[in-house]
């Protein structure tokens, strides 16, 4: 069945050629290709990674990380995780973002999955819950 259709297709091509509808008979073989860019979360992570500033040995951030204060590894990691995965979830209200609550929010975001969609909260009453 398939062979029959392929023959018919080749015949159609010949017919089109004969009618002069095909101007350029020479053509590359692999015209139909595709490349998997991954899921939304994977692609987002890749694109964000592509646009990270190039690290420098004189980068102040690097120097800062070495001292005992300021940006510790934990916080940086949390920020990175949020950048990659937080599209999903629910938008937070304007209050209660410091300390405990902020940590709780990040945890919640991480468990909500990867998709950008989902419910967004109104400005009242839902933060920290």
């Amino acid at each position, binding site marked *: 069945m398939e062979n029959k259709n392929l023959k018919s297709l080749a015949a159609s091509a010949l017919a089109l050629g004969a009618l002069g509808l095909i101007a350029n008979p020479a053509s590359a073989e692999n015209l139909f290709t*595709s490349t998997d860019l991954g899921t939304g979360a994977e692609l987002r992570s890749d*694109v964000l990674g*592509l646009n990270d500033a190039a690290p420098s040995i004189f980068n102040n951030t690097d120097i800062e990380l070495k001292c005992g204060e300021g940006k510790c590894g934990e916080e940086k990691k949390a920020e990175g995780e949020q950048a990659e995965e937080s599209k999903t979830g629910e938008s937070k209200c304007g209050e209660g973002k410091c300390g405990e609550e902020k940590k709780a929010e990040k945890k919640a975001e991480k468990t909500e999955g990867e998709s*950008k969609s989902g419910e967004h909260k109104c400005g009242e009453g839902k933060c920290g819950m």
Partner: protein
Amino acid sequence: MLKETTSLAQQKLANYTRTGDSTGLTEARLERIPQYRRLVYNVIKDILGQAFPITKKILGNEDFFNLCNDFFKEHNCKNTQVWKMPKELIDYVNDENSAYKLAHTFLPELLLFEWLEIEIHTMTNIELPKLYKIDSIAQPYFVNPYHKLIVLQHPLHNKPFKQWNTNLGQYPILIYRNLRTHKVHFEELSIFGYLFLSELQSNSTRLFESTLVNTLSAQNVAITDAQILSSLAWLKELNKKGIVFSV
């Protein structure tokens, strides 16, 4: 039905939360109302930040929040569903007078690229026909309905943003929702892959043969046996990924 005075007071407060202009807000306590604006604006800012993380990173926090603020202040959002608001940011930036579009030519495209993930993820479920593996070219084909085909001019997906304006071209992208996992996937297509899928959607027969002939002849490309075989192999790959099926 609200009293006219209540409705008017609400409109004034709403206008204040958008613009920060407290003129005429005589009934409110001016030392407290900034909190309303802060709360509402934070919701807007967070929703937009979550919808457009790449844009936020490229523009930087300050420019991105300025964009959010200007959008909130100047654009009359029409949608009543808050998750659709990011789409309106694209309309706002696409306005021909938009200073943002003039300053960042890639911005409308980048916003759309990011928004489509949300749009496809939230597409309404429809009843599908019985779908089969592609093993014959005699059966009509069926394209996963939860998808969008776009052609980017900037290589947003594979180059750092500093190279976007110097690598302008045509980058066809298929964005689709997997029927089983419901995750949104991105696929970069060749131009002919893009044309074939576009043709397949509009072709009334949805048959391989007519779709391939129409696609190639429109581009003045001859059909060879090798192309027929390679296009079939490509379609089988798309079938495995859940993009095209036999019905």
